[in-house]
């Protein structure tokens, strides 16, 4: 009598049910709610050309950085240096255009991504081979990269007039009313999201994040995965730097300052557990949109924008408490299932 009941094949209803219960849906609903509430107060927020564009465009750069950050956090690390990488890459891009005015634009993207990957590789190599916590290493490189940036830049500033018009146009251009940068972010999201969910390599990130020792005993190449995660985060931040240059056109030595907090906040709010092993990059992107849209909505709703950071903090804490509650509930259900069997 030990027949184990086969789990029912996932029907359309149960799929819909799990979709409705998923963290990503919850975050998206919260995002929709914020947009709706703000739009009721001021229809311009959604129903004007600029409002619609800003809604999609403003969070896109943080979203790209958050995708890389999510991969790192899923592997049970954290990358605090992303803001400094964004800043350093943005300045590199600006300097390239100053030095070589006709620099081809696709090549600029490649250079930015390659440079970001290189900085990420430094992080990853130190973490993976030094066997020291990522937090300390990336705290160190946060300082070091920013310091290099400030020494290099000085009080210099690169202005929009130093960069080609086509490049700057990328920052505001729209295709069928959707900003190009947002399309780019969605493309990266689709790629990384598919990879993380469906490939062997992607699942290894989750395995390592859930239990690094078990993953290693099982034979997974932990060092390699950690390296890849940091390079991915560096590449995403490098791309973020290029996009920042295109979008804002003004680059000083403080570009990207504080991005690490927004990226980590976005990932955590989006359901990427800080202890690793769970969450999706889609959640991180929704987290970024929720976070930055709340920032933009506060002044419209009559709350002085000085309170932005307090709201962000409260959201992060709320999200991690929610994560814990959900994890506890799931653990309890699994225990009950086991004792019932």
């Amino acid at each position, binding site marked *: 009598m030990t027949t184990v009941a086969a789990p029912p094949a996932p029907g359309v209803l149960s799929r819909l049910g799990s979709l409705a219960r998923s963290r990503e849906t919850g975050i998206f609903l919260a995002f929709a709610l914020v947009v709706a509430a703000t739009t009721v107060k001021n229809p311009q927020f959604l129903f004007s050309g600029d409002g619609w564009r800003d809604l999609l465009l403003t969070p896109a750069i943080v979203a790209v950085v958050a995708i890389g950050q999510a991969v790192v956090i899923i592997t049970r690390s954290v990358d605090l240096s992303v803001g400094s990488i964004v800043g350093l890459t943005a300045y590199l891009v600006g300097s390239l255009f100053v030095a070589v005015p006709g620099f081809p634009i696709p090549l600029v993207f490649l250079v930015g991504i390659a440079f970001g990957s290189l900085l990420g590789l430094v992080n990853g190599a130190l973490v993976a081979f*030094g066997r020291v916590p990522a937090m300390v290493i990336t705290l*160190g490189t946060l300082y070091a990269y920013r*310091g290099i940036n*400030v020494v290099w830049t000085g009080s210099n500033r690169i202005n929009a007039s130093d960069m080609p018009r086509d490049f700057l146009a990328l920052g505001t251009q729209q295709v069928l009313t959707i900003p190009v940068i947002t399309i780019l972010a969605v493309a990266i999201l689709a790629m990384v999201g598919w990879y993380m969910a469906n490939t062997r390599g992607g699942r290894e990130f989750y395995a390592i994040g859930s239990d690094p020792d078990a993953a290693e005993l099982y034979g997974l190449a932990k060092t390699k995965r950690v390296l890849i995660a940091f390079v991915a985060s560096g590449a995403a931040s490098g791309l973020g730097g290029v996009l920042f240059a295109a979008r804002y056109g003004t680059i000083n030595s403080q570009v990207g300052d504080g991005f690490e907090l927004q990226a980590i906040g976005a990932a955590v709010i989006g359901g990427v557990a800080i202890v690793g092993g769970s969450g999706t990059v889609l959640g991180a992107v929704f987290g970024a949109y929720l976070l930055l849209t709340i920032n933009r909505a506060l002044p419209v709703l009559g709350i002085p924008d000085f309170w932005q950071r*307090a709201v*962000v*903090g*409260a959201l*992060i*804490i709320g999200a991690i408490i929610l994560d814990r509650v959900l994890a506890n509930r799931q653990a309890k259900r699994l225990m009950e299932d086991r004792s019932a069997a």
Partner: protein
Amino acid sequence: MTTLTTGSPDTRTYAEFGRPLWRRALFNREMAIIALLLAVVVAASVMVPKFATPVTLGYLLFDVTPILLIALAMAPVMITGDIDLSVGSMVGLSSVTLGLGTQMGLSVPVAGLIALLVGALGGLVNGLLVTRIGLPALAVTIGTLALYRGIAVGLLGTTAITQFDRWWTTLVKSKIGGSGIPTVMIVFVLLLAAFAIMLHFTPFGRGVFSIGLSKDAAVFSGVDAERTRLVLFVLSGLMAALAGIYYALYYNSARGDNATGMELQVIAAVVLGGVSVFGGRGALHGVVAGVLLIGVLSKALQLVNITSDVVSIITGVLLVLSVIAGSVLSWIQAKRLRPAAPPVKTS
């Protein structure tokens, strides 16, 4: 299978007991940092004009005082394996509280007391979320880093409160005789003594180390791990609030963005001072030396007109090097202790 744990910090700590006492006392992280500090001080005194003067010493100590104060409480928090990223924000919130209090007509001691209460409360919130709900300290304090800073900035906006009781600001800026040593250093030395006794000479302090080495083992040995960690978070909030009061009075300015990013400086100094990021290891004399090392370097470079930005590179590189050095040393030590160990196959 035991070779898999070769590089772990625990093995290293126990392995150290195999060495004679004098070598353990002389050749350790703390002594290395103190030696480096002395070397930098000597080099700076010889090479940098005006470095070895009471005036420079005064400015140097005034600059590092808030970091020293917070590091005293951050060290035990990190020795238990936790971390508190919200301290910089708490410095801001505490100085804003002090500013608002005095603006409402309260005297500096009363407003300061309220600021300390705010600090203790902030630390309590961190501690409760970490110990009662069981959330990771890193995540909680990233959240409260934003939350406390947000409240500080929200309360004051972009305005600054700069009217503090002259008597108190003069007291904070005063020095002991002609030595150049700030009077507030007396407070710091007393607190250092208190924290050193607590950490190194009481059962509570032994509990702090044992939690860092293995929380489960500590609990089974009768250490109230949850209470210890909670107390340490409250202390961390308190010291950050004290640093905030100092900050507001010394710079005569309470702003929402006071001491932004100070948490990173504190953690860098504490790790540089030999506190293991895995927990379970560290000593306050190393931590003080770590803070002073960064302070001396930045002051010496400032005097030769190298901007403070180079200091951030040096801080970062020192931080990375110091943790990497620890890892490499423990790897070498483990190799020496187990020469015949078969190579570990990892893949």
